[in-house]
């Protein structure tokens, strides 16, 4: 499954949308539960099946949603699930789910609905670049569509009721994926993160070997979901993200005026490694691409485009690689094949 999808650009890496040089993607997730029914962790087989049926029927009744693809978890093997995580369509938790959970993927792949994950429904909308409001509107629309046939657990004081109280209220988690190599290099990133945290936002980084954040990619999202309107959450995240873009651009200007040679060297070395290496791990690619993305932004590299960078980033992920070449591969072979793919994409 998904071999065809692997060849198409992933929404979170399509490079469109405003400010997509720094902000890779925006995402809005809504948590919903069906009324008068135990939450997934407390639901037995019958109840879980009933939830699935309800949702399937609600999807059928919606002209828009019924054009998507409905997949049962039992149809997905471990590679499929990793692929979906890499595609930013499902959460990590989804990959460990047993039977009687499902996923709806929207026709344009910018929308997904997980069924029987932590809550009965996790609606998610993705948009490329800094487009939180757009993602929010899409998610909201799906919520409205589904609520025409499903009654959601709701209390006027607690809002939409969720399995975990940290999500109750709007049930909304809005986030952006942002690239901050400038702030990382000037060592100001910790100060910026601490400032952002004071504003009620959470900052997380991608994993990486050693203590460096992988690829200088950060996910910034709202922390609280109760006591603020959906519009407030979107507005504050948007405002803070724009502020971060400004900080990042200033940091880059400073780097280039004070350490031009060192930064250019770092960028060109990264390009050299990707162009000529014979084996590459996915973390290495992530880190090298960070320097290249910076290089493009600062007009140091002219022969690579942002869409090439995004394509390489998507395809070199472990599950993507195996789906693209339609065969399972051990890490050793993956590292070789990955390097070959990168070389060919860079015209080497």
């Amino acid at each position, binding site marked *: 499954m998904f071999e065809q999808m692997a060849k198409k650009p992933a929404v979170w890496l399509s490079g469109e949308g405003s400010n997509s040089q720094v902000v890779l993607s925006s995402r809005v997730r809504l948590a919903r539960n069906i009324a008068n029914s135990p939450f997934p962790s407390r639901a037995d087989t019958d109840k879980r099946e009933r939830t699935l049926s309800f949702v399937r029927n609600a999807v059928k009744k919606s002209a828009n949603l019924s054009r998507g693809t409905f997949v049962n978890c039992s149809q997905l093997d471990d590679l499929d699930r990793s692929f979906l995580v890499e595609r930013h369509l499902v959460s990590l938790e989804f990959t460990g789910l047993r039977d009687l959970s499902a996923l709806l993927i929207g026709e344009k792949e910018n929308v997904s609905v997980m069924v029987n994950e932590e809550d009965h429904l996790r609606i998610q909308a993705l948009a490329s670049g800094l487009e939180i409001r757009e993602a929010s509107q899409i998610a909201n629309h799906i919520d409205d569509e589904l609520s025409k046939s499903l009654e959601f657990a709701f209390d*006027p004081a607690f809002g939409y009721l969720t399995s975990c109280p940290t999500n109750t209220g709007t049930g909304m988690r809005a986030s952006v994926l942002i690239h901050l190599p400038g702030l990382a290099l000037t060592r100001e990133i910790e100060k910026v993160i601490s400032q952002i945290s004071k504003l009620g936002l959470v900052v997380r980084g991608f994993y990486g070997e050693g203590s460096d954040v992988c690829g200088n990619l950060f*996910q910034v999202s709202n922390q609280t979901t109760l006591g603020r309107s959906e519009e407030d959450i979107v507005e504050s995240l948007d405002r803070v993200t724009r502020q971060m873009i400004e900080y990042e651009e200033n940091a880059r200007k400073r780097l280039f005026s004070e350490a031009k040679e060192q930064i250019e060297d770092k960028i060109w070395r990264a390009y050299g490694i990707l162009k000529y290496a014979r084996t590459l791990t996915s973390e290495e690619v992530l880190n090298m691409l960070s320097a290249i993305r910076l290089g493009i932004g600062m007009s140091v590299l002219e022969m690579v485009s942002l869409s090439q960078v995004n394509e390489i980033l998507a395809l070199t992920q472990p599950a993507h690689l195996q789906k693209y070449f339609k065969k399972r591969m051990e890490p050793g072979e993956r590292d070789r094949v990955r390097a070959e793919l990168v070389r060919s994409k860079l015209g080497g």
Partner: protein
Amino acid sequence: MVCQDCGKREATVHLTQVINNKKVELNLCQECAEKRGFRNPLEGVPFPLAEFLSSMLSQAQREKPSKEPEVACSACGMSFSDFAKTGRLGCGNCYLTFRSQLNDLLRKVHGSTQHRGKFPHTTRDVMKPLWEETKLQEELRKAIEEEDFERAAQIRDRIKALTTKK
């Protein structure tokens, strides 16, 4: 560097989380990371919710009262100590059963106990204005009790504005 949980294996998983200006750093080996719930070094890290929630619950709430039988949700049978262990509630009715304890928790987590976002499609037109009116009437009662008549007058005007809009 050695894993901080087992003290034996090499730490290959490094995690930094900054929440409300508090930084938490974890350096774990693969096995201990998995035990804690961090499985695949790919996407954003799942938030160690159970720990976070139990740190938010007061000491008294975490310890089970020894003699009294615990209150359980009439719909799904969950008790508050069940919740304190897993960080997950059982069903919508749990929110009503444990309203006061949850209010404390929600205030600590979100800084609020009142939803200000959208109401569901079906109840939007009827329930939202009704709810707002009910809350204002509560406030009015309190203001009169406290003999804050100026505030009471303001609230009464707001109620009037709401009901005439209908």
